[in-house]
């Protein structure tokens, strides 16, 4: 009887099975916990058109700061927050610029004297069309999708502009 040899291999097998059991347990517990933890990152809020006024209200060529209510879902809270968009006429067409600086997300504001948008954080500078003219921002300001219904002016999601329009 080669007890020694089979004893060793039996023991080795037991070790492997045991390790596998604990590995399986770690996996069975770890995976659901991990997916639970990261899941909010994949919850997408529903896109909604927001009415910000009558089309006739917006005739200025100078960017006008429009403050509107936006419903957001913040975890277990549903809240209404104030948001802003800069609306003006560019070559006869209405444009709604998002004031979120494309560098690190601070809020830019329009400087009438210099006719440009300035970011207070790191000195980003955009012209009135939202194109970068100075500082660190990598891309032009986003523009909201817009539509008109019964004389009302609605804005949608802010979209990237791949190329600068000048």
């Amino acid at each position: 009887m080669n007890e020694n040899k089979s004893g060793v291999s039996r023991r080795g097998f037991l070790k492997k099975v045991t390790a596998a059991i604990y590995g399986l347990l770690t996996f069975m517990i770890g995976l659901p916990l991990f997916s639970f933890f990261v899941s909010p990152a994949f919850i997408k809020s529903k896109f909604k058109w927001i009415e910000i006024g009558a089309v006739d209200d917006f005739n200025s060529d100078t960017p006008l700061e429009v403050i509107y209510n936006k419903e957001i879902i913040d975890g277990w809270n549903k809240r209404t927050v104030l948001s802003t968009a800069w609306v003006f006429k560019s070559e006869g067409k209405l444009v709604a610029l998002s004031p979120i600086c494309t560098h690190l997300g601070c809020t830019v504001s329009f400087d009438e004297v210099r006719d440009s948008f300035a970011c207070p954080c790191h000195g980003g500078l955009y012209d009135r069309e939202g194109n970068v003219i100075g500082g660190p921002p990598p891309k032009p300001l986003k523009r909201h999708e817009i539509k008109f219904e019964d004389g009302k002016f609605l804005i949608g999601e802010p979209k990237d502009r791949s190329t600068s329009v000048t």
Partner: protein
Amino acid sequence: MINWLDERLNMREGFKELLDEPLPEGVGWTHVFGSISLFLFLLQAATGIFLSMFYAPTPEAAHLSVSYVQNDLFLGAFVRGLHHWGSSFFVVFTVIHLLRTFIYSAYKYPRELTWIFGVILFNLVLAFGLTGYLLPWDQKAYWATVVTLNIAGTAPILGDVIQKILQGGEVIGSVTLTHFYSLHVIVLPLLTLGAVAIHVFLQKRQGIAPPFKSPDEEVKFKSRFWPDQLFKDGVAILLIFLILSGFAIIFGAPLEKMADPTDSSYVPKPEWYFLSMYQLQKIFPGNLEIIGTIIIPTIGILALILLPFYDKNPSRKLKDRKLALTLMTAAMMTVGGLTILGATDDRPEESTVIVEVQEGQESSRLQPPELSGRYLYQNETCMKCHNIGGSHGEGEYDLLKTSGDKSVIWLKEHFSNPTLAQPEKIVEQGSLTLDQITDLKSFYLRLSTSQRDELLTVTQEVLYSANLYSQYKCGACHKIDDPEPGFGPNLAGVTLRHDREYIYDHFLDPKKFDPNSIMPKFDWLPKEELNALTDFVYYIDK
């Protein structure tokens, strides 16, 4: 990597020794429960950490955030289910582990310390349960905690202070929740980690107690911790985890509606592992309550902790330990019996009985307890919080809005301790007699009937005399409409049988009119009270 570490720390040999621990003959599947308990602790820690990432410990947000986890997050209901049922499993397996240790005599010399830390850990597990189930801030959470904190309040001398410290002030609310949250996620885990470390260190240092062997007997070592015992532990843990997952998926974690301190119809019951304690509270009434709330539980815990010191029997064989085993069986059966009683004792049924009684009352005239109850309503502190349809009393809680949906038991508890139902309000502790409580209850029940208006328009004189009638317990002997004979004559029709002078004089010396009368003399009452009682006899007989 391991070699790199070992070159610097030189710990490989130590670990090897730990893993290679030789196990005495007879150790095996019966010894998996400690590992299962440790596994459950780690699982609770893991699920708890992730749940805490989505939890807000404020009365406004707690329930919302838990419901967000439950309904909006991927696998949220499963993770909550694991944590919820994990606590029950934790209790079950620490108890089995404790009983196994008891049966195998493993608490005896030299392992007394391991046992003591084990009992401490068991209490920490219960403390986790207690602090944990306030956190969802649903009805059960809230009301179970109200009761728990009031139990703490029954402790002698410092009870009141302890209760206020635990709840963080006069009321159960924001600070209570943050206190319990911190206890549950910081204090108790740290204490438990420390106690587990000591418990496991002691076990590793002393080795597993050879089953049923006396210290002087020769012990054979047949297997090793790694992989023999770890394999068995692993299989058992895997099995338990699968069953636990089944519970989490099939039953899930309950989430009742958000805590409502004004809801008085709720019948709170604690988690099953506290049902024996819950039932114990019901056995001891009034001023003896401390026996059920503090004394018996404390004796129970001390009896467990000190077990190795008063059980001097050195034998580890079952046949030599009949007394110990009998006592433990009796203790377990008591706890089990109380748990079953607690689980099956249904209070809500009583409230359905009341409704029938109320309907029966509709046609009869107003009864003295109801009138006396209204007098008490006006003259005790009820009106500070209550009003009746806006016209009687300045409080904000309209009795007409809730009339009829409270059980008698609830009413009695509310009258004897208003804070219990309204923990957010500071109410003067009631000092009502049992008779007064009964009167208030009768008054409240009559409010829900069509005779409400009649009850609310009775003159103050009648109310005053009805209260005297109740105070001197006239109703104990005299009935009015009830056909059952009382000890005294039925008062219906008494004014037809006798004139006013007779009735008044009868109070002074009943025996003068009827030598067999057992009615006591009321000649010590002031004249105006005697007149009022005589008037009242006329009122109820009209």
